[in-house]
């Protein structure tokens, strides 16, 4: 590769990635040379500023046509733009939240937190925009490895150590499985480029080869379920969520999960939609695997929602809640309808607001008392009525009650399940039934907050970072619940992500 070809690429389309990379590098150097006694808090603000600048640059790129550079390993298409926006918005909110995070034993590695956070984000962004198995995998690993360290950042806390350990081991296994699946795909197509793979696989006629390809599909689906925290790789979530520092938990439950769905959509739609499957009537490989996805979606929803009923630790409760939401999102995927990507994007956007808002309040309340037991929420309404009402909004949205963004998101996913022929009645029935089950634990938090007498009586103030997060999230949750039209008008700009392989 010569200098000329290198300069010939439109590097501008990678601006958001470069900004994050630059800020991460700068922060790691500053942290290295900064005296130990000095507060790392300003670094956090720099990180927030960096992410916001990246958002601005991404907004500037929204009108740019679909572009691919570096031999199609990096693509800026509608899909990349839309989901990168979610990742960056989520990351900015989590960073704001982390500014105020003060665990019992003190935050010793605050500087490390900020730049590792940014590298994790960078990994997720690269995944969103990649058009090649290699870059997809590098992005995935960058995200995973950064997350492993983040989970274990409370070095003197045994739960945090345990969570990091579990996360690494589970992550390692799942990555191996994913990679094994990818190796079959490479073997069958002889290429790592998604477009070329799709072209090769669409001519695959031999039933033996198709069988191997189906196996590859299942391996990749199972392996990637680790990032989604969906069945069968969901077991790590409760332990890691509980042990990891709260902002990291928020990151895992929102940004990392979004990234998981990004890679699932990108990979499976690109590769398997065009591939033929065996059977009497030749159909798309993706369609023929629909039942397996649906089964995993159903299992995820049932496991998440029923086990959540028993939880006393709020972070574990939210871990199971996030597993359940992964299940709802998988319903959107399993339907394979024409609203699939749209509905998942909207749901992820709604989930971003409602879950991060809930986590901001969760962090404020648990930091206050040092305990994560559900009873710490008792009498919150008496201690801080406004905070209690905000928590109410987020919980209602998570439960999918109308008037909130969560409801519109769920309705859209149902719409996808019913709009196809044949419609997915069973899957939708499982989803609605488990949603009603989820009322029990969400409203259980309500009884703590509004009906129970307070455990502590002193009122408390909410730190500035958390205040911003709660305000933004409440606004988003309510605004997109009452006026969803605005978000849909914005979504229409992406033309339903039709430029996947162009």
């Amino acid at each position: 590769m010569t200098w000329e070809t290198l300069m010939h690429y439109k590097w501008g389309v990678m601006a958001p990635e470069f900004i994050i990379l630059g800020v991460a590098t700068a922060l790691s150097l500053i942290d290295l040379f900064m005296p130990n006694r000095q507060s790392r808090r300003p670094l956090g603000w720099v990180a927030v500023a960096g992410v916001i600048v990246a958002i601005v640059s991404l907004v500037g790129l929204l009108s740019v046509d679909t572009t691919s550079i570096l031999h199609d390993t990096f693509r800026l298409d509608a899909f990349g733009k839309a989901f990168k926006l979610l990742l960056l918005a989520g990351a900015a909110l989590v960073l704001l939240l982390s500014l105020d995070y003060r665990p019992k034993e003190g935050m010793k590695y605050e500087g490390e937190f900020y730049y590792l956070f940014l590298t994790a984000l960078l990994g997720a962004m690269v995944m969103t925009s990649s058009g090649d198995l290699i870059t997809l995998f590098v992005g995935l690993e960058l995200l995973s490895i950064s997350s492993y360290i983040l989970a274990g950042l409370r070095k003197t806390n045994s739960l945090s150590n345990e969570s990091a350990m579990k996360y690494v081991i589970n992550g390692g296994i799942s990555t191996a499985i994913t990679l094994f699946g990818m190796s079959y795909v490479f073997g069958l197509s002889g290429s790592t480029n998604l477009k070329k793979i799709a072209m090769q696989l669409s001519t695959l006629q031999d039933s033996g080869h198709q069988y191997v390809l189906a196996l590859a599909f299942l391996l990749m689906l199972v392996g990637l379920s680790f990032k989604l925290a969906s069945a069968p790789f969901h077991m790590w979530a409760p332990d890691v969520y509980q042990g990891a520092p709260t902002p990291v938990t928020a990151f895992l439950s929102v940004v990392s999960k979004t990234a998981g769905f990004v890679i699932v959509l990108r990979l499976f739609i690109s590769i398997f939609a065009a591939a033929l499957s065996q059977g009497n009537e030749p159909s798309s490989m993706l369609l023929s695997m629909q039942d397996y996805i649906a089964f995993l979606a159903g299992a995820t929803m049932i496991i998440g929602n029923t086990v959540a009923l028993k939880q006393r630790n709020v972070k574990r409760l939210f871990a199971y809640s996030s597993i359940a939401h992964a299940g709802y999102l998988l319903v959107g995927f399993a339907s394979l309808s024409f609203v699939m990507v749209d509905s998942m994007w909207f749901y992820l956007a709604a989930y971003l607001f409602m879950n991060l808002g809930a986590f901001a309040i969760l962090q404020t309340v648990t930091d206050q008392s040092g305990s994560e037991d559900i009873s710490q929420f008792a009498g919150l309404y008496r201690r801080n009525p406004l905070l209690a009402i905000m928590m109410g909004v987020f919980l209602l949205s998570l439960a999918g009650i109308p008037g909130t963004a969560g409801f519109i998101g769920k309705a859209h996913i149902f719409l996808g399940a019913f709009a196809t022929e044949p419609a997915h009645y069973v899957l939708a029935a499982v989803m609605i039934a488990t949603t009603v089950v989820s009322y029990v634990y969400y409203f259980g938090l309500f009884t703590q907050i509004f009906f129970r007498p307070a455990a502590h009586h002193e009122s408390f103030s909410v730190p500035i970072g958390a205040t911003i997060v709660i305000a933004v999230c409440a606004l988003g949750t309510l605004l997109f619940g009452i006026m969803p039209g605005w978000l849909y008008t914005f979504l229409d700009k992406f033309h339903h992500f039709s430029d996947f392989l162009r």
Partner: protein
Amino acid sequence: MHDTYFLSLLVFSPLLGIGLLAFVPKTQEQTIKLLGFLATLPSLLLALFAFSQYLRGYDLSRLSEKHAWLQFGKYSFLPDSAYAIPYELTVDGFALVMIVLTALLATLAAIASIHIKKEWKGYFMLFLLLEIGMLGVFAAGNLFLFFLFFEITLVPMFFLIGKWGYFEKEKAAYSYLLYNGIGSAILLLVILILFARTGTSNIAALQDMLRGGEEASQMLAPISNDLRYGLFIALLIAFGVKLPIVPLHSWMLRVHVQAPPSIVMLHSGVLLKIGAFGLIRFGMGLFPEQFERFATFIAILGVVNLLYGAFLAFVQEDFKMVLAYSSISHMGIVLIGLGALNEAGIQGAIFQVVSHGLISALLFLLVSIMYERVQTTMLDRLGGLAKAMPLAAGFLLAGAMASLGLPGMSGFISEFTAFLGLFKTNPALAAVGTLGIIMTAVYLLRAVLNMTYGATARGVAEVADIRTVELVPVLVLIGCIVLIGVYPQLLAEPLAATIQTMMNGLGG
């Protein structure tokens, strides 16, 4: 269509009260209660105004509103308006009657809320939110909006029961939440299946499409006959929870006993009626063929409700339980009327919806007044009420008479017409049903006579009689009950058009 915001104003005017209440310090009990009461007035006045205009021949379709709200993406291969959900409100005679009933009961329940003992601010804010939900349900022009308002009632009710109720309030609140949660979940599935397959959720358009009218060609995907039956049964269950149809009723007993009486006035007076409204509007309106096939079954369900409620009401020791079972029994008459499948039956059913709304509100108002003084509603501890509270005891007797269907009161008209309908189509079943009417007289007289006469129980003798502020709502309700009983045309006229549309759908 010219722009009008009349219905929006009507539905959302309690918001003003919520906004004002937010600025009142929570210790100002009198101000909060007064403000809470005043906030229900605009809706009532607007509703009464619309009703009087309608009686003079005003065309209600001119009140319809429609604004763009939400579209689940625009697709080049679909019609332009597919998957769009506008914000649309519309009323017909039936809906308007229900709106008047709702607004009236809300105002009266706000007066009855003087007996609320704590956290008035939160109470009235939720109360007004509940009112918005109830009004909106009847004014909704599409299924999506209907569901939205339907669910808006769920959350305030959960809090109102769970926080301001009696001893087992949290259990009652959960029971309410889960049963109704399941009911509305099923309803949501039905709505979204219809929406996904037709591309619209407008009630009038759906009616036309499902009957194979002009717009049927715009459907996006077929709705097979089996699917129609499935949807209809799902609707029957969803609204059966709300109505409630035996055996889906256990939650409703808990709510009747545990919730504060002022809320039960609304719950029994309006919320249960949403079940009947939905069954008539969507069960019968959208799936007339299926409804016809199930008519006998529905009539049987109605007779079961009637008898089950009546017999169990007879053995209850708690007056609130008597009234709860009485509600189940009376909702049976709605089903009986609908199952009759003729004009008289449907008219009787709708009459019963309105009439029972007024009567049960009256009885629970009296419960609230008595409980305030005696601190109990157990029948054996209320003996001799007639001596201590002659007025209240008199009203109680009047309420019971209305409930058991004394001629000259609204209960008579509705039960008579509903049974008239069923006797035409299914005399045997109707004959069994009349047993329930006799039982109604028996259990109500037993309960009321126990309370008013009999040996004076401890603590009853020295209580004061009804106060003026309590007297007003009682008189208003009795006035309405008698007015409908004496001059049923007041209801029959506005309902005539709706019933005619229903009959057309049924092919009669």
